């Protein structure tokens, strides 16, 4: 009886297998063996972030406000334009303009790289059932793995700073874009596909003339989700210097205010991030609806 109980009720000690040492060895091995690769990716990500930040920093704040007003107005309504302009202006009034640019740099760079990676991956996934099955597992893992689990490995491969931060943001923000691109393409009606085939379209023509235009709305929704995920991830990624070593981005200010129990500062920094999220969300939605109307 006790043998049964010891075996089936409490997990038997001799069956416990500790993978930690192997994982540690694997991380070391991967870090050393592909050092040149991680180094190259790091260089690329840092340059990408540099260029993005240089561009954002080059644009005067007043141009930002005016452009956002016009964009909101043309895409949706003058009320939307006003909202976007006021929110942008408010970030400046809170004294967070430069800090905001540091955070926006990583969000934008992360989203652009996610689009560059996510679109082709979503398309390939829709073309191959085998790949789809594999990707599904990979994407589920990426989305559910707690960020804390890969922050430190990212740090070891890419060094403290924006490169590791971008990797963390991309791991977290990429999956919805791939999924929605895949969904957009696989959900096109059979009639549409038939029509394309009966006109003798080549696979490339099918993709660019029929599938992608039809999937555009779904893809835009994916970009929107990816952007929102990037905004939320920046708060955690700030712990590994995502906004730049020695720089004070909004997320780092928020993080510092929270652990230092400075409630008012945390609220303000939190709102700046919320404003950024609203502005990005409304802009992308505006574009999506615009495309949608234009397509019909």
């Amino acid at each position, binding site marked *: 009886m006790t043998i049964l109980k010891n075996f089936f009720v409490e997990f038997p000690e001799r069956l416990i297998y500790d993978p930690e040492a192997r994982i540690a060895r694997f991380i070391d091995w991967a870090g050393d063996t592909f050092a040149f690769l991680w180094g190259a990716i790091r260089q690329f990500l840092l340059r990408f972030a540099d260029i993005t930040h240089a561009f954002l920093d080059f644009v005067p704040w007043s141009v930002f406000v005016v452009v956002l007003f016009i964009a909101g107005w043309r895409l949706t309504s003058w009320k939307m334009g006003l909202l976007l302009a006021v929110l942008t202006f408010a970030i400046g009034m809170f004294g967070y303009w430069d800090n905001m640019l540091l955070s926006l740099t990583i969000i934008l760079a992360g989203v652009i790289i996610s689009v560059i990676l996510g679109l082709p991956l979503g398309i390939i996934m829709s073309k191959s059932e085998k790949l789809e099955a594999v990707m599904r597992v990979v994407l589920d893992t990426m989305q559910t793995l707690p960020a804390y689990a890969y922050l430190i490995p990212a*740090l070891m491969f890419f060094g*403290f700073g*924006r*490169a590791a931060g971008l990797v963390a943001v991309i791991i977290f923000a990429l999956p919805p874009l791939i999924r929605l691109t895949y969904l957009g393409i696989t959900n096109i009606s059979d009639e549409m596909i038939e029509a394309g085939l009966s006109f003798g379209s080549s696979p490339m023509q099918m993709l660019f003339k029929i599938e992608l235009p039809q999937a555009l709305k779904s893809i835009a929704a994916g970009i929107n989700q990816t952007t929102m995920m990037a905004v939320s991830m920046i708060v955690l990624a700030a*712990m590994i210097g995502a906004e730049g070593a*020695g720089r004070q981005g909004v997320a780092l200010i928020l993080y510092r205010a929270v*652990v230092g129990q400075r409630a008012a500062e945390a609220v303000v920094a939190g709102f700046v991030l919320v404003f950024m999220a609203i502005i990005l969300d409304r802009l992308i939605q505006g574009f999506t609806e615009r495309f949608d109307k234009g397509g019909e």
Partner: protein
Amino acid sequence: MKTFLKRFSFLAIAALLTLTIAACEQEDPDEEPEVDTIILAESDWQSHELHNSVVEFIIENGYGVDVLKAYGSTPAVVQALRDGDMHVNMEMWSDNIASYQEDLDAGYYHELSVNFDDNYQGLWIPEYLQEEHPGLVSVHDLPDYAHLFENPDEANWDPEEDPGHMYLGSVEFAATQFYENKFENPEYSEIAESFVWSPVSTSVLNATLYEAYENEEPWVGYHWTPTAIMAELDMVLLEDEGEYDYDEGTGNLPPNDVTVIATDDMMTAQPEIVEFLSNYETDADITGQGLIYMGEHDGDSDAAALDWLVEYEDLWTQWVPDDVASDVLDALDEALEE
């Protein structure tokens, strides 16, 4: 009808008042506070985990009282102690807690003993780096050696042109603010001009230090003893000749009085355990021995505590009455057999 309404409203108001008064009534001040389960404050550094595991084992097996360890950042822990949501803290880094003296005076909690006070904090470099560059001894030498400390956040870091990079401690540490004060002080402006610095969590601090140490690369940053990593690695504390002043950021941080404290409730509810905690005194070396074991065993503080209790039996058995000591020793034998 009218009288009925009158009576009814009178009753209703009376009932409401009674309820309100009942709700507002303070707990009877004469009632003994009960602490059935002792809640220890826990932090994300290892010496705190080790001392907590030691105390947990002694209290649970020697006094038969349950112990819970509750993790929190330093400000959160201080607030919880004030509110009585936690009962004991084995490591109050008293000089780093701005409200410490105020809280003691206000009677929120009481200092029972000094756990250890021979700890060091400051900017450290690996010993191999100093052997390579014997001139790097003080923080004032840092500007001359800034070219060694690559900024991992720069795509094309140029040792001649770009500032070096150093790591500071967790943003909630008073020491982090101290170094930010230091770099604003004109006396240290050369460091501020030749370096950028990032405050990071303890896990990031340790990860970057291990990584650099393994490859014998330069690393400079804040750290402190006693910690497992500092006990394991050969590190050198950079000197800072100035006189210590927190607000001005001058000099080196003095060793902290790391105290054991207990709340008011704890004092009245568990006087025997308070007596034991009042005797709890170690030092950085005694703590460090446990930390080395902990570092070798995946940071398992409970296992390290068992090893520590065996190693320092002569020490801790003096802290508790003989019958408690023998109970703990019996439990220890049992635990080690498993």
